[in-house]
Each structure stands twice: as structure tokens, then as C-alpha cells.
């Protein structure tokens, strides 16, 4: 069962590699994502009934927390794959990319999903590290897909910074191993999370502390925690929009998941305050830094990237404050963010398709020109700003509750103040885009700009038979519209009602984090 989660994307990737038919690899990708989503739900069901898929110590393994992450990853990958077909098809038809890059995209897309799925499924922390490093390598190629100056620059920075970061994470992993070997009397240590957790109280605290610092800085770089977040706005703004959605929605969470797993051990070994302080430090600096940068940000995608930093900060804060509510809030926020942020990237992508820009001051009147996108976008903004009745409100409210119960007033005050700035930044930029009279040269009702295709950056391969017909027929924008509506509905639902199974899954996962 678990293995199929790995094998299906792999197979899809092979199809992309081998079969050069746009229709085939597009459908293969969507089908693969549908299949793994189904499997993920089954795994989650098993986790709910107390079962653990796979075995601890085995190659892959899934407890409730893993199942939760897998569900988040697969469902979002499904949504993104549907959106990709429309979006990347548009990019292809407008000559922003060539046919080779188009196929290459789907190949990497499947590999990207694969590596990300591997992260929560690995019991062995070194394997998890490899998976996370794998995500960097694959996604760096995706970030640089356009081969433009700026996208190459972004990809370069991304790969260098994340590799440096992840080097520290591996060092931290080694040190945990060392600690475990010390705990087991100088013999072989353990790298399995389950084993480490079991011996956590016996680990040398000083060693664990050193290791955890390295882990937080290392995976924190990848998770976009300030002040080591700098790759994030560049990569998010330059990647193809569906990839930005994946980066923001899942990749950051995968990296944070790495921190989570180690933090559980560190907490069992060092006690609560150290982990809390570390999380507070990175969390609050992320929230503050992001809110300041969002004040004057004029590029919609960069703005969303900074918003991701803010939300990772919120997750860190919720996790840091701890207690059942804190952990629950952190996980719920991961889910909410994995819906809300991709939704906004999708909206931005649609706007780019219509206006050919993501600069907030160059577009206006979205809500008139594309009512659905505008309406969904407004919902997304409100959700990202943590306003009820959307999902983020619930998780942020729970976090505030936990903060209040712990008496962390300074943190709460700073968070609330930053929240105001974030709200201002989001609403100013997107509000300016959505409202007013439509500015686009394209007439209302036409979803794509009418300008002639830009000359391709890279010459087409000789004799390449390019299938430029859209794979999904019918009304353009329909599939992505449905996806976006569903996501908005999910945000609304999570704000008012958390389904029982989901609630239990999160509670179980929070229990795992709580030890």
C-alpha cells in the first residue's frame, strides 16, 4: 500500500519520460495524482483506526502524522495537476515554454511529488533527509523552467541556499545519531525516528541541543523561517505558478515536518522550554519580517511568498506554544495554508493569464473582468489574513488561545500587530488589483490576452511535432475554476466545521507530536 504511493508517481514520471504525447502524459499525471490521493485517504482511514501502515524500522512507514501529511500532499498535488494542465497548456500555447520544457515539467512534477511523499513516509531520518534534499534538486529545475535570467537566478539561489541549509540538517541528523549511540552505551546508534523517540530520555541533552540547533537552522532554511528564508520570495515568484503553489503549499510543510519530527525527540530529551524558545524565536521573527516586507510589496507572487513566511512563522509559533491546542493548531494551520496559499497562487496565475502581469499596480478590475476569480481571490485573501469564517481563523484562534493560556502576551501582541500589517499589505495590493475598472487591453470575457505569442526563449527542437491543442476541451478556465471554487469552499468549511475524521486524524497526529 505504502509502496504504491512511491511507485505510482514513479510510473507516471516514466511515462512522461518515455511517451511524447501531450495528451498521455497530462492524463498520466492527473491519474497518478488521483490514485495517490485515494490511497492516501485509505491510509488515513487506517491510521484513524489505530493502525500503522508499514512497520517502524522498515523503509517506509506511516503513523497518523505521516498519514495527515500524505493526505495534504496528495490532495494538493491533485488540485495542482488539474490546474497545471490548463496553466502550462496556456504557457505552451503562448510560447512561454517549448514542448520539451512542457514535457519536462510533467516529468519533474511527478518526481517532485514523489520526493515530497517520501518525506513523511520515511521512518529513517537520514532517508527523510535524502528525500528533502531530493525535493530541492527536483524543484530547483522546476523553478528554473523558464530559462529566463530571473528564473535561473532564482533557481540558483534556491539550490545554493537550500543545499547549504540542508547540509546543516544532515549534520544535525548525524549528531542525533551520535547521541543515540551514546545512549545505547557506545554501540550502534539509531536513525529510526521511532527508536530515537524510545530512547529520547536517555540521550545526552547537550548533544541533542547542538543537533537540534543545526536541524532548525538547516530545515528552517528550507521551510522559510526568517532570518534564513531568503530564497523563498525569489523562487516563488519565478517558478511556474502551479509550482509556486506546490512550493508554498507542501514543500515548506515537508521541511517543517522534518523539524517537527526532531523536535518531538528534542522535547522528550531536553524538555519543553528549549524547543519552545527556539520555535518562538524563529516563529516570531518570521511573522515580523514577513509582515514588514508585505507592507510595500508590489509583486503579487512575491507578496504571497512573504505571506508563506508569515504562515510558517505562525505554524512555528503554534508548535512552540505546545499543548494539545498548540499542536492541533499547528497541524490545522498546515492544512489551511496548504489550501489557502495555492488557491491564491492559482488566482494569481489566472490573473497573469488575463493581464500578463503579476505586478499589483499594473492590473485592476479583476472582479469585473473575471468575477469568479475575483470573488475566490477575495476569499483567499481574507483566509490568508486569518479572518473568520475561514479555516485559518480557527487555527490562529486556537494558537492565540494556547498563547493566552500560557501567558505569552508579548508574543501575542507582536503577532496581532503583525497581523494588522499583513492584512494591510494583502488587501492593499490585491484589493488594488481586484477593484476598480479593468485595465487590460483584452476585452472582457476573453480569458487570454490577445497579444501575439512572444518569441520562444529557446529555439524549438528541430522537427519536434508539437501538439498545441489543449488537452482539456471545453470551456477554458472551467477546470481551474472548479478547483478554485472547491478550495475556497474547503477554506470556508474548515472555518465553520471540521469533519469528524479529519478532527480525529489531527488529534491523533497532535498526540504523536505531544509524545
Amino acid at each position: 500500500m505504502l509502496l504504491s504511493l512511491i511507485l505510482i508517481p514513479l510510473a507516471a514520471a516514466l511515462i512522461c519520460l518515455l511517451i511524447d504525447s501531450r495528451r498521455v502524459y497530462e492524463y498520466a499525471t492527473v491519474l497518478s495524482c488521483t490514485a495517490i490521493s485515494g490511497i492516501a485517504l485509505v491510509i488515513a482511514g487506517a491510521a484513524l483506526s489505530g493502525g500503522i501502515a508499514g512497520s517502524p524500522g522498515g523503509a517506509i512507514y506511516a503513523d497518523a502524522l505521516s498519514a495527515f501529511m500524505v493526505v495534504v500532499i496528495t490532495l494538493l498535488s491533485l488540485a495542482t495537476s488539474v490546474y497545471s494542465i490548463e496553466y502550462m497548456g496556456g504557457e505552451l500555447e503562448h510560447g512561454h515554454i517549448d514542448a520539451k520544457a512542457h514535457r519536462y515539467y510533467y516529468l519533474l512534477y511527478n518526481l517532485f511529488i514523489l520526493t515530497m511523499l517520501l518525506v513523511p513516509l520515511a521512518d529513517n531520518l537520514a532517508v527523510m533527509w535524502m528525500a528533502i534534499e531530493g525535493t530541492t534538486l527536483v524543484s530547483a529545475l522546476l523553478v528554473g523552467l523558464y530559462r529566463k535570467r530571473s528564473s535561473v537566478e532564482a533557481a540558483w539561489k534556491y539550490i545554493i541556499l537550500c543545499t547549504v541549509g540542508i547540509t546543516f540538517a544532515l549534520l544535525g541528523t548525524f549528531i542525533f545519531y551520535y547521541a543515540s549511540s551514546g545512549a545505547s552505551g557506545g554501540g550502534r546508534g539509531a536513525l529510526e525516528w521511532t527508536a530515537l523517540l524510545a530512547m529520547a530520555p536517555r540521550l545526552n541533552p547537550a548533544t541533542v541541543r547542538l543537533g537540534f540547533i543545526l536541524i532548525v537552522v538547516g530545515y528552517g532554511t528550507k521551510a522559510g523561517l526568517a532570518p534564513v528564508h531568503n530564497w523563498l520570495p525569489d523562487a516563488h515568484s519565478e517558478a511556474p505558478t502551479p509550482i509556486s503553489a506546490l512550493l508554498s503549499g507542501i514543500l515548506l510543510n515537508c521541511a517543517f515536518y522534518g523539524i517537527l519530527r526532531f523536535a518531538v525527540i528534542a522535547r522528550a530529551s531536553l524538555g519543553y522550554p528549549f524547543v519552545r524558545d527556539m520555535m518562538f524565536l524563529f516563529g516570531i521573527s518570521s511573522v515580523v519580517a514577513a509582515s514588514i516586507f508585505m507592507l510595500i510589496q508590489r509583486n503579487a507572487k512575491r507578496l504571497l511568498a512573504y505571506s508563506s513566511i508569515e504562515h510558517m512563522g505562525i505554524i512555528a509559533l503554534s508548535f512552540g506554544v505546545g499543548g494539545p491546542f498548540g499542536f492541533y493548531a499547528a497541524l490545522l494551520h498546515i492544512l489551511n495554508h496548504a489550501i489557502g496559499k495555492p488557491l491564491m497562487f492559482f488566482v494569481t496565475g489566472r490573473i497573469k493569464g488575463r493581464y500578463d502581469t503579476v505586478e499589483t499596480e499594473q492590473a485592476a478590475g479583476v472582479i469585473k473582468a473575471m468575477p469568479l476569480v475575483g470573488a475566490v481571490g477575495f476569499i483567499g485573501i481574507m483566509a490568508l489574513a486569518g479572518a473568520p469564517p475561514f479555516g485559518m481563523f480557527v487555527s490562529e484562534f486556537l494558537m492565540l488561545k494556547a498563547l493566552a493560556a500560557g501567558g505569552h502576551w508579548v508574543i501575542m501582541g507582536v503577532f496581532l500587530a503583525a497581523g494588522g500589517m499583513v492584512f494591510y499589505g494583502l488587501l492593499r495590493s490585491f484589493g488594488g488589483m481586484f477593484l476598480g475598472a479593468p485595465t487590460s487591453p483584452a476585452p472582457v470575457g476573453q480569458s487570454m490576452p490577445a497579444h501575439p505569442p512572444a518569441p520562444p526563449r529557446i529555439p524549438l527542437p528541430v522537427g519536434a511535432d508539437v501538439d498545441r491543442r489543449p488537452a482539456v476541451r471545453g470551456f477554458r478556465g472551467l477546470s481551474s475554476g472548479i478547483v478554485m471554487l472547491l478550495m475556497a469552499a474547503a477554506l470556508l468549511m474548515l472555518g465553520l466545521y471540521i469533519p469528524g475524521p479529519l478532527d480525529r486524524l489531527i488529534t491523533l497526529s497532535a498526540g504523536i507530536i505531544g509524545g
Partner: protein
Amino acid sequence: MTGAFLRIKLPPTFFSFYGNLSIAFEMETDRPETASSKTTGKLSSACYLLCAAGCLFPGLLALRDLLLGYSWHVSLPLSGVLTLSFRGGGLSAYFVVILSILGFCVSVYSVGYARHSSASWPSLLLYGIFVSSMYAVFYSANIPAFLVSWETMSLSSYFLVVSDTKNPESARAGLLYAVMTHIGTAFIMAAFMVMYFATGSLEFTAIKAGLSGAGGLRSVIFVLALTGFGTKAGIIPLHTWLPRAHPAAPSNVSALMSGVMIKSGIYGILLVSLDILGGQPTLWWGVAVLSAGAVSSVMGIMHALMERDIKRLLAYSSVENVGIILLGIGASMIFSFNNLPSLAGLALAAALYHVFNHAVFKGLLFMGAGSAVHATGTKNMEEMGGLIKRMPWTGLFFLVGSVAICALPPFNGFMSEWLTFQSLIMGIKTSVVLTKTFMLLAGAALALTGALAASSFVKAFGITFLGVPRSQKAEGAHESSASMLLGMGILSLLCLLLGIFPGYMLRLISNIPLPGLGSLPQFTPGAFAVTGVASSGVLPIVLLGALLAGAAFVFAFPRLAGGRRKTTKTDPWDCGSRIFKKIYKPRKEVRIEYIVKPFFTREIEYRSEITPLAEAYFYRPFVRALHNVAHFAKRLQSGNLQLYLGYILGTLVVLLVVWG
């Protein structure tokens, strides 16, 4: 039992929303880009009528709750972590009654109003959400329910404000509004979190029980809540959004925003400081509220006086009236502190009464202004004029509203201000010098506002409706549709009824379980008196009779005296200036009044100093500083990879040194 109540109460409040939802989407699907506006109009009418009906039932039920002292409580456990609970009766029922009356009238008004404007389906939907969420705010019985409803209310009203996409100003006004209200909500949230910290509960009733012992925390909660709710209520200097957002919104929405939504701020202040914190205020709480009220009332109406935009004028007048309400609340707190329960009840009753009254006449005025703006296509009063001949009923209703808001007898505004005056004067009579001084200042502020309000509204009504048309559009204006007139007519009638039967209102108010209100003296329906520390009374219905009798007398007198007189209609005399009519165009004459006359020039100078006070000395420097910080911070993300690597190294080294 609660289940029964759930069936009875909640559906009507939310079904307006659902009704809107379904119909709105129906409209969307069968509407191509250029649909027949007739169908759209019919459907939107149906939506608004549904909303009106939806407002009727909860209003009647809340009235019954209030009169019979019923209360109900419903818990909706939405998930393991989020339970929303709602309750009715008491204070919330009182506000629900207000909302229902205004919601009903505004919805009826909207039927006609929306037919002529380009109402899109989202704005219909949002209207329903807005009304429903206001109900939910008043019904909320725990923190999550309150926050959810509160933000839903704020956001839906934000979208309604920006729904006029043709107007570039509306987006900016909306942004300011949304950000201010969000910051306000942050304060409210903080207040609630302190409550949670102190009591470990999210339910208002449990918090109330748990907070009785908390000393200093109570003050913290109070300050946070006053700031947060004050932002919504429009207390100066937190009012900056109000004069921008209200004019930008469609008039039916402005009527609701000004009539009810800003009252939700008042509701919040009452809920926290008198209900949850148990009505044992410290002295300075009352002083703070009283001062805020005094400043808001005087500054608000002074700003209003200088406005030319009719809706901005009304918006500033709302600031004034909120100030008057706060005077009552603040006085009540001070009396409570001084252990004078009957006076506390009196002042509180005055405030609550004014809440009701202001909702009625400000709703009426915004609707009237909406009709005028609609008919002329401008919000500038100086481009209107002479409308009363073209829209006589609207003119009459606006006049009623103006007279009422100026607290002139026999309309309702007078009754509540009279009560406020009574409580303040009695406050001056009490023994504590400090209390006396503050009551005196408050009384002086209230006295100042009276004439200023009259002046503002003579201008508002006179310039808009009287005289001669000063623009082409004003000349071509026509009377509003029947539903709009009906909406305004009901409120006009209420202005009169609430004015001449104050006793009923006070009986209603005395049923609210807030400190002091129970000890209000029993009032007879038509009369109005204060006994105890003070004693005085008015008989508004007799006063009305006297006014009518006087008019009848002077009407009959010349006829009794006999003789036949002829009435001629001709051009106005105007000191002979009609001889120079070619030179003095009517438009020019009016401009003289505002620009050339030395007195007014002087006033403009004087007031322009206070106009941007809060903005110039607080908001702008603050925003500028923030932007400076942001621009400075931008340099930290310089695009230089080495710098970013440096951050990683630096972070690591610092952590190693500190913790390693």
C-alpha cells in the same frame, strides 16, 4: 427547549442569507453579460423582500423575549475545537429589535433602490450576509461565535463598501475601513484572550462568573475592549474610517452601517464593561468613556458642519451621536462606581434609548440622502437644491429625520437627549468633586452639540431640498419609488412614535438585565419623568398637542378675524436683487454664503486646524514610519546571494554561542 428555540430563532436570521444565496446564483447562471435588467430587478426585489421578511420574525421574537424576560441559549459544536454558542434575551434582544426594525425598513427601501442601481449578485449576497452576521453578533454567547460573526460583519460590509467599482475612492476608503476594523478586531481578540487567560473559559456567562475576582486584569480587558469596539463605533480618534467608508457604500448599506453596525461597537462596550465585567467599574473607566464621548460628540458634529458631501455629513453626525451614547454609558459607569444605582440606570437607559433612536433616524437620513444622491447623481449638496418640489415625500421624511436628530421635540432624539441631560445634571449635583467636574464637561459638550447639530441639519436639509436647483441633474430629479418611500415612511413614523411614547421604550429598557436598569422608575406610556435625586418630567404627547393647538390657533385666528386676502405668487423679492438677475445667477448667490462671508471663512480656518488632528498627529506619522521601516528592511533582501549565506552563518553562530 433549546432545540425548540433553535428552530424558532436561528433559521429566520440565516434564511435571508440562504435565500439570497440561492437567488443570487440563479441570477448569475442565467445572466449573460447584457441581461435584461428587468429580470435582474425582479430577482433582486425578491431578494430584498426575503431579507425584509427574514428580519421581521427575529425582531418580533426578540421583542417578546425582552418584554417577557425570556432568554435562550444554543450551542453549536462545530468541531472538537470550535463551539459556537448563541443566546437571546436581555441586551442582545434589545439590539436585535433595533436591527430588525432597521433591517426591515432598509430592505424594503432597497427593493426600489437596487432597481435603479446596478446591483450585482455579489452585492445582493453580501447584503444578506451582512444583515445575518449582525444578528449573529448580537446573538453570540461565546468568544468564537462573537469573533466569527464580528469579522463576517466587518468583511461583508467592507465588500459592500467597495462594491461600487466605478468610484476609485471607494477602494481606498474600503482599504482604510478594512484595516482599521481589522486592527480593532485584534484588540477585541486580545481582550477576549485575556478573559480566557483569567477564567479558562470561552463562554461569556462562565467568564462573567470567573472574572469577578480578577483585579487589574479587568482594567486591561476594559482598555483593550474599549479600543477595539471604539474603532467600530467610531470614537474619535479611531473614527477615521467612518467618514470615508459610509459615503463610499451604497446608501442602503450606509443606512445599516451607520444605523446598526456602529452600534455593534456600543453593544460590545456594554457587553464587556457592564455585562461580562459585572458592572463594577472603576472610576477611571467611566471617566475614559465619558471623555471619549465628549470629544467624539463635539468634534464629530463640528466636522459635520463643515461638510459639503451629504453622506459624509451624516457619517460625522454618526460620530457625534455615538459620542452622546457614550456620554450616557460613561456617566452610568461613574454613578455605578459612586454607588448610585438609580442614576446609573437612568444614564444607561438614556444611552440605550439613544442607541435605538439614532438607529431609526440615521437610517432614515441615510436612506433619504441615498434617494437624493440617486436622483441627482451627486453627493455634493451644493449641486442639489430645490429637491423638495421634485421629491416631496422624500423631503418630508428627511425633514423628520433632521428634526429628530437635532433633538427637537416632539421627536425621539429629544427624549433620549433629555434623559442624558437629566442624568448629567444630577451627576453635577452628586457629592464627588471629580465626578461633578466630568459631568459638567460632558454636559457642556452635550449642550454644544445641540445647536451645532441643528446648524448642520438646517444646512443639510436646506441646501439639499430647499431653494432652487443648482445643477441640471437636480432640476431633473424625480420622486423615489414607492418601496423606498415606504421604508423611509415607517422610520419617520417611528421617529414620532418613539418621541411621544417614551414610556413604552423605557419599560422595554428596564427589562434589560444590566446594572441599574432594574431600578428605573416605572413610567407611564406617554409620560416621562425622573424622580429620586432629581425630579422633573415632560409629557411629550401633551407637548405635541400644544404644538398642534398652537398651529391650529394661529391658523384659525386670521380667519376668525375675518376679511379676505389674496395670495400672489411671484419671484422672490430678495432685496431687489432680481433686478440684477442676469448678474446674480442663483448658483452664484449660494456660493456667496459659503465662501465670501467673513464669518464662515473664519470658521473654515478655525476648523481646518482640527479636521486632520488624529490623522496628522497619529495615523500619518505612524504609517510613514512603518513605510520607512519597510523600505529599510527591503535592503535586507538585496538579492545578493552572499548576504543570504551570511544570514545562515550568522544565525548559526549566534545560536551556537547562545545555546550550544
